[in-house]
């Protein structure tokens, strides 16, 4: 009759329910990517090259969405891999469009928000840091951070700093709210069982 969930099981359920956010965020990336590719490509070759990652996004998201609808959601490792791939693809596009000048960096935001709703703090923090580092490196490698004048470079550095702060804030806030809601859910269960002693849980995986 009774069933006791460990934190590991709860984390599993968080991934199950949170997949909706991840899938929705990726659909927005697809639509945004399509708009940008369709309106900014100037040659057939450029268009063909730019559309490849979008098509890849579409296929991956259809697969994840179909599994979710069938009640067989992808496991944690697959979700992590898919989201890491999201970051890499966005960074590749940013790199291709000269780093700081690229407007594709805005695509990091929904991905970071959705990820923050699904995974525990440590994983989410690592993911956000990786996203910020990837974007920072992309801006450095392309040289888009540096201008002929010192002031120009400083302005670019401020721009990069603000963008990184906003990215970190979105990831951090999403995960903060994820933990608040988790505590609310736990409280709902426990409050109606007065007198039950707390049970030691295993660490969340």
């Amino acid at each position, binding site marked *: 009759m*009774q069933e006791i969930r460990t934190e590991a099981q709860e984390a599993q359920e968080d991934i199950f329910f949170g997949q909706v956010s991840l899938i929705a965020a990726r659909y*927005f990336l697809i639509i945004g990517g399509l*708009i940008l590719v369709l309106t900014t490509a100037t040659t057939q070759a450029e268009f063909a090259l730019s559309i490849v990652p979008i098509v890849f996004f579409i296929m991956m998201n259809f697969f994840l969405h179909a599994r979710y609808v069938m009640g067989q959601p992808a496991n944690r490792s697959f979700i992590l891999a898919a989201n890491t791939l999201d970051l890499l693809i966005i960074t590749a596009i940013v790199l291709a469009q000269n780093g700081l000048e690229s407007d594709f960096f805005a695509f990091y935001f929904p991905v970071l928000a959705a990820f923050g709703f699904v995974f525990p703090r440590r994983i989410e923090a690592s993911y956000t840091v990786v996203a910020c580092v990837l974007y920072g490196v992309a801006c450095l490698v392309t040289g888009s951070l540096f201008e002929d004048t010192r002031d120009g470079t400083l302005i670019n550095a401020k721009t990069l700093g603000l963008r990184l*702060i906003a990215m970190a804030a979105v990831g951090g806030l999403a995960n903060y*709210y994820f933990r608040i809601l*988790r505590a609310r859910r*736990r409280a709902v269960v426990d409050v109606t*069982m007065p007198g*039950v002693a707390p049970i030691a849980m295993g660490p969340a995986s």
Partner: protein
Amino acid sequence: MTTHRCPNCGRENPAEGRFCLHCGAALPVTPASTGAAPPPRRQAGPPAAPQRASAQATSGAQPGGRARAPVQEVTAMFRGDSSGEVSEDLSAGQIVIITARWVLILAGLVFALAPPFPNNLVQLEVNVVVIIVLAMANFFLHMQVLGKRPTLDTIVYASAAVDIAVVSVIILTQVALQGAKAGFDSTIYVFYFPALLALSVAFPRSMTILYTGATMAVYAMIALPGSGGDGAVILARLLMMGAVAFVGTRYLGVEGERRRAAAQAQQELLAQVRQRQA
């Protein structure tokens, strides 16, 4: 099969039970009942409501160690009072909005006070004054939350509108002083993202749609005149703003359903226990 004896009626119960099947009394927790948790099961559709007990939840602690009142938290849910639940969502989400605002304030100060400074002193002064006013208002709201004093829903809605307005005013100041192109070039719009995320996880869906729509409209009006044919770039930015708000409000909905399912299952469990008692 391992069993343990009820301290109240003296009859045997399964080791993993938390209540006596015969009299309904709470059973003492033994190592056997905590160590042998069943493996996670694959579930088609939403899984059964999680029933768990943890020290954090029993004490009603929030992440960050602050105590909350769980009884008050779930009252509206058991009453089936949707407006009460909306207020509780607002109350729970308010700290996220306040945190988002602190991020906005700190980043704004860094942006304003780090060289190179804007050519126009007025622009710097406007930026700093707006940030200080925002910080004072946020300090007041934060004190209300820390002191566990209820904040009116209207104030929470108004403060979120002020956040959006502040970001827009700073961009508009740049436009006024540097020309229409500054609206498109300004990077300040990135602060719409945390602001929208914070309100989307706290506000009911209709309000989130209203605020997000208004934000997108205001930003489009500011940035489009200086976009010089780059309308698609503006469209992509707006779409990402919508994406962040959508993801937030969707998550709020999913979590609400999970919480209601948990409460429902808990009620059914208690009813079963009472039935056996009878």
